[in-house]
């Protein structure tokens, strides 16, 4: 029996082998198998800690495979990688069995980190506890499907009383017409119908001040962690605050878990209450935070004098167990519930005029806009906006020494980016010295940076900051709407300037030459009428049409430096492409374009280049390689890596031969499966990367290939020290118009046909849908 840290289950060799290599090089014992049967066999023969499967269209059984492994070997931690861990995937994974983790493949080192942590906690378990519950355990188990019951208000009071009998209960209490959370022992004192509270309930999970360590000073110093395990109940939490807790969970329980937060979170029962009376400054619906499906143990909603209660977790279900006065809702009640939810959502007076998903890019474009300076002129740097915010979690840590000089406490307290000394460093430099810097930072952090880091927008639209800000400038909705308006005005201006409408009418091009590349692919040389040039950049594409059949986006495979005609390389996959494969020289085709952004030539020039293509990813990349070869003096060292499934499936072999002959280009090729005639390298494309020598500071990489290839190649490149803005990829999407309208190519907020198809990783990191 061998001990493997990790078992990879995947039918696709490149996935399997890449993950294996990459984790093996990170120092793990890895076994990789191609089917569930092999996986089960491996699991019964060997000791295995973590099983990993990748959820893709061509590996759809991933969840089932993991579940089967889990059911027979419950001790194995199961990890599902999903490029889009949507609710459906997560729910499917949670429903089928409890898949332990669902992970996005971006950033690619996330898996490694998770595995590192899992291994650490396994070792810790064996060796007994070391720290204070550092390993993030799953919280209360989520139950599916979420059942709804109805409680009379008498039964609700009884439920409150039983909770209050053995826990501290914090609930909302009215004071001078405003609401705040207080310790409440008597049900009659609390309010369940409130607009919002002064401070958010998050303060019970992340308090304004808390002692992290008790310190002993002197000759034998010591540090004792201080973690409160006291149980409490938050009774009456609005959905937007639950959404905020979701973000805090991600922050404090994900990477680098925070023991103090975890202890409180685990020991806090969350009882939600739907918000039917939104505050005048709130905009929760715009932030998708007026209704939540999870994140609570129980969720209450008044209905016709009684209370509906939705069960969110096992723990919530236990609270309800054996209670009197609980019944199933009537149809009328269910209708009433959704009607009042609907009505409540219409009561919000503030709204975002731009989609949440567009915020990161929108903000980025207006970083230097004078708006930030103008609007922050009256900022007092008072910090009120960040103190009352449920999604703010910055803090300061300081030692407080007692007068006896032998003991001290390490205390953390809330801090915030709006305070003038927040970014002050010891040397006296302040990285955000002006009000403008701080004001902009907060709006960016909420609308962009947190999304990029955690995939969750950093504002839930509770409106508290707006109310708390004396000069009335703190509303993110207002700032984002203003910027969106500035953007609209800018677009209106350029629209009238440009004047010429994008046309759907294609140029009629003549097919000059057709040549086979492989069994499925051919190259087509097209000439525009009157020897017009297409005027493209490497990496751009055209919409090619065969009248009556349709249009398809096709990359231009030749460089603009080769004038007179363009070449398109096409795989026979469907209607248009098949029709083209049947055409002979002399035929006439429609061509529109060029479209898209192309490869970032300004960023590539004068740098060393690593150009990586997998399969027919060479079609678009060839235009760049030709361009580089033709303007060789404008680039540093150039390395081309090409991988194909088999020697026969390699495309543009004539070009490959030419490039390998050139002294000023380095070409390395590999195939997944070799053949007798193939004398070259065998192995997936990632295996070519470790041996190449890179000077990270002056290198740019461009990667084009099938989606599965990206993340592994990217992982390798990052290991070579390349940063996200040094790696560009080209994405293929379904496209119908090429002009940013039809919506087919949309990735979150952006249109691949206009903003892409080439993106740097830095740009992609904000797009949850990017690598599918």
């Amino acid at each position, binding site marked *: 029996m061998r001990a493997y840290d990790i078992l990879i289950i995947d039918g696709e060799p490149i996935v399997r082998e890449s993950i294996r290599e990459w984790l093996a090089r990170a120092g793990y014992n890895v076994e990789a198998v191609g089917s569930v049967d092999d996986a089960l066999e491996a699991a019964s023969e060997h000791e295995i800690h973590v099983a990993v499967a990748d959820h893709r269209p061509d590996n759809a059984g991933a969840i089932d495979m993991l579940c089967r492994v889990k059911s027979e070997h419950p001790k194995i931690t199961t990890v599902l990688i999903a490029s889009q861990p949507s609710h459906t995937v997560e729910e499917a994974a949670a429903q089928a069995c409890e898949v332990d983790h669902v992970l996005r493949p971006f950033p690619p080192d996330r898996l490694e980190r998770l595995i590192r942590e899992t291994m650490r906690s396994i070792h810790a378990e064996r060796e007994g506890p070391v720290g204070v519950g550092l390993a993030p355990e799953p919280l209360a188990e989520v139950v599916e499907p979420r059942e709804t019951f109805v409680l009379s208000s008498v039964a609700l009071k009884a439920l409150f009383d039983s909770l209050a009998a053995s826990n501290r209960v914090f609930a909302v209490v009215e004071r*001078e017409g405003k609401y705040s959370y207080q310790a409440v022992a008597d049900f009659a004192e609390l309010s369940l119908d409130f607009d919002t509270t002064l401070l958010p309930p998050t303060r019970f999970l992340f308090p304004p*001040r808390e002692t992290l360590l008790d310190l002993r000073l002197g000759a034998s110093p010591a540090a004792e962690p201080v973690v409160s395990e006291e149980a409490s109940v938050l009774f009456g939490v609005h959905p937007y605050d639950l959404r905020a807790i979701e973000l805090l969970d991600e922050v404090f329980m994900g990477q680098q878990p925070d023991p103090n937060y975890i202890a409180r979170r685990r020991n806090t029962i969350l009882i939600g209450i739907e918000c039917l009376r939104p505050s005048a400054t709130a905009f929760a619906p715009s932030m998708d935070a007026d209704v939540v499906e999870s994140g609570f143990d129980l969720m209450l909603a008044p209905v016709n004098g009684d209370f509906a209660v939705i069960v969110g977790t096992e723990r919530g279900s236990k609270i309800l167990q054996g209670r009197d006065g609980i019944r199933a809702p009537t149809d009328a009640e269910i209708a009433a519930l959704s009607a009042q939810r609907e009505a409540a959502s219409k009561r919000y007076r503030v709204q975002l005029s731009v989609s949440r998903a567009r915020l990161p890019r929108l903000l980025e474009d207006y970083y230097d806009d004078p708006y930030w300076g103008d609007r922050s002129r009256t*900022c007092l740097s008072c*910090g*009120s906006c960040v103190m009352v915010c449920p999604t703010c979690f910055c803090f300061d840590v300081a030692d407080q020494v*007692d*007068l006896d000089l032998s003991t001290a406490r390490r205390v953390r307290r809330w801090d915030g980016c709006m*305070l003038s000394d927040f970014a002050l460093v010891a040397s006296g430099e302040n990285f955000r010295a002006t009000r403008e810097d701080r004001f902009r930072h907060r709006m960016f952090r909420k609308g962009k940076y947190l999304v990029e880091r955690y995939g969750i927008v950093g504002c839930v639209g509770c409106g508290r900051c707006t109310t708390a800000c*004396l000069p009335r400038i703190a509303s993110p909705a207002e700032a984002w709407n203003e910027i969106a308006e500035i953007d609209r005005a800018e677009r209106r201006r350029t629209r009238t300037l440009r004047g010429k409408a994008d046309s759907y009418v294609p140029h009629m091009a003549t097919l000059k030459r057709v040549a086979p590349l492989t069994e499925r692919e051919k190259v087509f040389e097209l000439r525009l009428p009157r020897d017009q040039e297409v005027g493209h950049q490497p990496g751009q594409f055209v919409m090619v049409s065969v009248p009556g059949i349709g249009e398809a986006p096709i990359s231009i495979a030749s460089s603009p430096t080769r004038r007179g005609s363009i070449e398109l390389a096409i795989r026979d996959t469907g209607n248009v492409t098949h029709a083209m494969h049947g055409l002979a020289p002399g035929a006439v085709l429609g061509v529109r374009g060029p479209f898209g952004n192309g490869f970032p030539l300004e960023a590539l020039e004068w740098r060393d280049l690593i150009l990586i293509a997998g399969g027919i990813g060479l079609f678009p990349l060839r235009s760049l390689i030709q361009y580089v070869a033709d303007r060789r003096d404008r680039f540093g060292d150039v390395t081309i890596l090409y991988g194909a499934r088999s020697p026969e499936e390699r495309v543009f072999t004539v070009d490959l031969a030419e490039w390998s002959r050139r002294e000023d280009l380095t070409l390395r090729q590999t195939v997944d499966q070799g053949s007798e005639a193939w004398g070259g390298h065998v192995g997936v494309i990632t295996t070519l990367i470790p041996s190449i020598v890179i000077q990270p500071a002056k290198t740019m990489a461009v990667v084009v290939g099938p989606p599965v290839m990206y993340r592994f190649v990217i992982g390798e490149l990052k290991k070579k020290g390349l940063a996200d803005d040094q790696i560009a990829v080209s994405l293929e999407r379904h496209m119908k118009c090429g002009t940013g309208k039809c919506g087919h190519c949309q990735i979150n907020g952006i249109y691949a046909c206009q903003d892409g198809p080439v993106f740097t990783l830095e740009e992609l990191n904000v797009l949850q849908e990017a690598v599918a």
Partner: protein
Amino acid sequence: MTPRAGRVRKPGVAFFDFTCCEGCQLDALNLTEDQIMDLLRAVEIVEFREVKTGGCESYDISFVEGSIAREEDADRLRDIRERSKTVIALGACAHIGGVNCLRNLVPADAALQEVYGDAAGDYDILDTVLPIDAVIDVDYVIPGCPINPEEFARTVADLLLGKEPRLPRHPVCVECKMAGNLCVFEKGQTCVGPITRAGCKAICVTAGRHCWGCRGLVDDPNIDAQREILDDAGLTVEQILEEFRIYFSCGKEAL
């Protein structure tokens, strides 16, 4: 007499007071008994209130209370500075002039006349009442009226450990929010918490009043914006002066 060998000399600490409202002095410090014992164990109180005439004492730490109103005070203060390694302004009077600066609102002669009547000529008062840093270099400040005893204890402990004592740089609003208070502006009242240095845990607002700025300004106060919000709250310039002049009368921090 030579000190016994091996005995570590405890830092000598002195307290001095000048023109002072009530006194943030040791007896009014509100330290717990334990803290006082700890303090006495850690330091030697070598002087209290009066400098021994003709003495050549020197002090490790001198706490100075009160503001400077007379020329002879200024001389005495300069003498203290010369004999002290570290001078700490204790309380609002020493720090920003405190309540005493109210006198600056009327001409010195008139004030003298009002207070001392015919005896006015016997007093040599300065044209304006001054915080101590207008006369000497001050190393640290323990602000507030009265001072926050915790802050006092922490400052002493930090100094004894050789650590630079740091005052909060953020305004009172931060602590006011942490305390969960409803902002008094929302109740139609006014407050200078947004420009006042925190450290008091916003006790005045918590107690149902507002902040009048006894701890002095933050480093980078947005005075214009503060004035605007007071304006918006309906206060005239005269009312602002009336309401907030207590701690804003010593010239450099005029509202």
